[in-house]
């Protein structure tokens, strides 16, 4: 047995746990659930509620000799002290004896429950927590069954307190455990709620404007042990026991957050099953038990009234409803007619099965390599396949001595779950190095926050990489040298890279430089080792899958280089305008709406497969209605290359079909043979074509094992209401560096041309309007990001703009209007957020608009 293990006994059962473990956790390991309210395994213990009182005894020792005192029968003498102790604050020690079932303990539990209920409203029938409420459950188990309180003495408090638009507070139900306050402070790093007043009048208040301003607010409703905090989405929506939980994944971000949608059939929806709420599902290597508010609240698009319900075909200039057979026949016929002048672009929200069949349709059916992502912002999928973060890694394992490099990305806005986990890693002692054009929120936790001048990201990163090879003592005035010293001495090294202010080509250079950083270190590099590697900050949930499936002009599935590359998306859009591309298939993307394509140009035929009538769909000849992710099953691959399954949850809308089904049916018509009958069978073909996915199938992806901390079981009081993962942890595919040697990448020297003038950089905001969020906006309405242009004070003076002015921004031939913010941008850079994607750093023209006076 290792020295770090401590053995104690709980109710006569021996258990060995690491030093420093708390008594409640030790008991939990052997299935002895000590009731708790304020303790939560992901939060620091505070010992506020006294629910966890147990008898704790320590072996007695002879004062003089220090020898353990023994009973006559040779067993050690145990001293239980005079009172009970809180199991959530006492750490285990060798020989400790814990008793959790004795009379004094039961008595104490009944007393604490009675005390908590003195002013509790007994709202269970109308309380959203009723049925999954720790207080309710523990009252049933340990309460006395009656009360000595007179009802007239109950303290009445406000029952309807909106803490912002998303979370509502019922002051009577709060038991003052501070889990919510501590979560916001310790885990989320947004201390925007706090306690107000004292004693019985203690109440939760929001300290921010707008109220409860955090991307994590929904999680407080999961860990609140009572129904004091409820979400605007689920308030009075249904009783928990009526819900059917279905495992799903985040449809938004590349972290692959595991979630559960709770559905119910409803009379109001005409008997269809609808989503009542979205909850986190535990995956300790992905999102632990947290999900961002975007994941939790942006799901209404699936049930939006604007969804397309039947195929549309253009007749006499108008899109009219048609049968599936007619629409599919037209699509297949027109695509074949176009011969080699056919092209396809796809979005990166679709499943691996969809994307794979899209690729089959083009490469095998139409014999064309003109295939690309509609809005590829970030290059380097092929580099990630070489040196991506090693399988089996977990950001939770990073700590002292480890280094995380984040380049050109604002994780708080792009992938909040990673931000949260990196913040935690920093608090455990990991050193974070950020390299951005401007300050981001992660800088607060970073050891080195580096900046680059717009356009010089690659050069600056090259300096960092080169200097980290040099052995130094780490003492340097040059920030880059200091950061390089930190990176050079890293135990584990994880590198994230994004696309903020970078062109597509620049992102490729950045990826290569970071790959070299991971590979070098005196020939014995980080790449290929556990908890080391590259993570791309992809823009969407399945961009990784799109790369894996060969949605790329020069890679077939599994990163097999093609002898002859096809057109990339930009060439296709140009071809559409000039007439060299005759037929275009747009799968789950909106290039016209995103400003990438200027109308349908000279295309003979445009087919769009979508959920909504987007700008591109409105210009199309045929529109095929696709199902949303909750109506069908499939797999997504997250940016850590973990392939995970999601499951059908709600009744399909109208006559829509799953994307892979539609593509298989088009494929059949262009001669690809019988269409696949199930997503699992398509996945079988994926595994055959993509060698990295070898050994996976729907069954292996659905495997799960018990995770620690143990949440979601019978004891909701311990971990909160996040769901236990019983639907699969997925499988990570192995990067090349893990199984063999990978050579260094050549990165061409790029001449830095510094052109004069203010440079425009588009920055991310979590709630930026887009197809999905705009069709779910009611809840988030006031929080949606508005177009905002940030300038430094000096630059603002130069262009004559003051804080709050409306301005017109022109760059790259695009014109946008925005509200100016002065002060939080570096000199020479204009940051724009809340708008669609703008690549690179373009010189910008800013014009102040005349204020329209509002009467």
């Amino acid at each position, binding site marked *: 047995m290792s020295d770090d293990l401590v053995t104690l006994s709980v109710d006569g059962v021996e258990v060995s746990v690491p030093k420093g473990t708390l008594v409640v956790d030790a008991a939990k390991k052997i299935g002895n659930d000590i009731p708790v309210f304020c303790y939560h395994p992901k939060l620091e213990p505070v010992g506020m509620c006294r629910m966890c009182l147990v008898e704790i005894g320590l072996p007695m020792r002879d004062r003089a000799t220090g020898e353990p005192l023994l009973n006559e029968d040779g067993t050690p003498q145990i001293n239980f002290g005079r009172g009970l102790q809180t199991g959530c604050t006492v750490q285990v020690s060798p020989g400790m004896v814990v008793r959790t079932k004795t009379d004094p303990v039961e008595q104490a539990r009944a007393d604490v429950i009675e005390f908590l209920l003195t002013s509790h409203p007994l709202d269970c029938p*109308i309380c959203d927590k009723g049925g999954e409420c720790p207080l309710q459950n523990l009252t049933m188990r340990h309460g006395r069954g009656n009360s000595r309180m007179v009802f007239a003495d109950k303290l009445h408090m406000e029952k309807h307190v909106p803490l912002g638009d998303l979370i509502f507070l019922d002051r009577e139900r709060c038991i003052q455990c501070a889990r919510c306050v501590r979560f916001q402070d310790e885990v989320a790093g947004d201390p925007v709620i706090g306690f107000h007043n004292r004693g019985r009048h203690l109440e939760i208040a929001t300290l921010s404007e707008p109220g409860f301003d955090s991307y994590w607010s929904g999680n407080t409703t999961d860990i609140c042990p009572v129904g004091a905090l409820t979400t605007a989405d689920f308030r009075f929506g249904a*009783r928990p026991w009526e819900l059917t939980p279905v495992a799903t994944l985040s449809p938004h971000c590349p972290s692959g957050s595991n979630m559960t949608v709770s559905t119910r059939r409803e009379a*109001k929806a005409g008997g269809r099953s609808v989503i009542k709420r979205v909850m986190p599902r535990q995956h300790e290597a992905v999102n632990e038990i947290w999900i961002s508010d975007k994941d939790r609240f942006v799901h209404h698009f699936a049930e939006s009234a604007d969804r397309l319900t039947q195929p549309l075909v253009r007749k006499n200039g108008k899109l009219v409803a048609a049968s599936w057979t007619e629409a599919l026949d037209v699509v297949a016929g027109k695509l074949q007619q176009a011969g080699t002048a056919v092209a396809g672009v796809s979005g990166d929200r679709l499943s691996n099965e969809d994307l794979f069949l899209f690729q089959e349709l083009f490469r095998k059916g139409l014999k064309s390599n003109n295939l690309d992502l509609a809005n590829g912002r970030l290059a380097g999928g092929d580099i990630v396949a070489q040196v991506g973060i090693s399988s089996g890694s977990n950001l939770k394992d990073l700590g002292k001595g480890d280094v995380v490099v984040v380049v050109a990305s604002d994780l708080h806005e792009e992938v909040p779950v990673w931000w949260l986990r990196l913040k935690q890693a920093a608090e455990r002692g990991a050193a974070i190095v950020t390299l951005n054009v401007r300050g981001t929120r992660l800088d607060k936790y970073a050891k080195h926050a580096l900046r680059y001048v717009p356009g010089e990201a690659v050069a600056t990163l090259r300096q960092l990489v080169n200097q980290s090879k040099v052995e130094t003592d780490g003492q340097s005035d040059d920030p880059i040298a200091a950061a390089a010293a930190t990176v050079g001495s890293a135990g584990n090294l994880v590198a994230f890279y994004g696309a903020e202010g970078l062109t597509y080509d620049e992102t490729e250079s950045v990826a290569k430089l970071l790959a070299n950083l991971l590979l070098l270190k005196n020939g014995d590099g980080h790449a290929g080792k556990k908890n080391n590697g590259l993570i791309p900050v992809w823009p969407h949930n399945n961009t990784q899958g799109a790369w894996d499936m060969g949605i790329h002009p020069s890679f077939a599935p599994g990163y097999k280089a093609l002898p002859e590359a096809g057109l990339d998306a930009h060439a296709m859009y140009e071809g559409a305008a000039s007439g060299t591309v005759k037929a275009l298939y747009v799968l789950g993307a909106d290039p016209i709406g995103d400003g990438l394509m200027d109308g349908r140009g000279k295309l003979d035929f445009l087919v769009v497969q979508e959920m909504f009538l987007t700008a591109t769909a409105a210009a199309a000849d045929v529109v095929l209605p696709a199902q949303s992710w909750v109506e069908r099953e499939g797999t997504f691959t997250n940016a850590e290359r973990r392939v995970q399954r999601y499951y059908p949850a709600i009744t399909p809308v109208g006559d829509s079909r799953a994307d892979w089904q539609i593509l298989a049916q088009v494929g059949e018509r262009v001669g690809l043979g019988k269409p696949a009958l199930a997503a699992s069978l398509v996945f079988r073909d994926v595994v055959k074509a993509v060698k990295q996915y070898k050994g996976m199938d729907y069954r292996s992806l659905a495997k799960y094992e018990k995770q620690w901390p143990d949440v979601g079981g019978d004891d909701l009081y311990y971990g909160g209401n996040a769901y236990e993962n019983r639907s699969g942890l997925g499988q990570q595919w192995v990067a090349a560096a893990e199984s063999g040697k990978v050579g260094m990448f050549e990165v061409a020297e790029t001449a830095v041309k510094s052109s004069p003038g203010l440079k425009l950089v588009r920055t991310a905001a979590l709630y930026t309007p887009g197809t999905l969020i705009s069709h779910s906006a009611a809840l988030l309405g006031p929080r949606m990001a508005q177009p905002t242009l940030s300038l430094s004070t000096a630059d603002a003076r130069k262009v004559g703009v003051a804080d709050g002015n409306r301005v017109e921004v022109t760059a790259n031939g695009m014109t946008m209007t925005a509200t100016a913010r002065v002060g939080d941008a570096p000199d020479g850079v204009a940051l724009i957020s809340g708008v669609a994607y703008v690549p690179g750093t373009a010189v910008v023209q800013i014009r102040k608009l005349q204020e329209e006076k509002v009467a």
Partner: protein
Amino acid sequence: MFGEIVKGLYTTLKHLFQPPVTVQYPEIKRPVRNRFKGRHELKRYENGLEKCIGCALCAAACPADAIFVEASENSDEKRFSPGERYASTYEINMMRCIFCGYCEDACPTQAIVLEKSYELSFYDRASAIYTKEMLIVDVPVNGRSTPQVVEPGIFNRAIPEMEDPK
């Protein structure tokens, strides 16, 4: 044996001259017993507010899965019932119901009560589903119909009268 036959015939003969116990339903309807469990009614308070708070405990208790409830939020400008929650949909499928009365037992506000009506017959399955409009009783003489506009802050308890421990 002969004696038994005479005894039997005597019973027959006796009943021949007694008034019949059958009633000519539907011309004549027999009153039902106090504890008879017939078709449900959703009750109202005297001021007209609905007693049902949409908690769905009846639906949870129902062994036949006959009840379906959807709740919504009350406000003082649009109040259906006391407290924050009311039933915006309340349906009972009379074809599934076995008239066990568990729903009545489960109800924390005595809103759903099995009453005396037993004449339940339908031409099709859909009409066996009784909606809230069909189940709810008429507004009492001194009450107002729902939704009501009420003075703020009065009806903030879903279960207005809690009893002290005895």
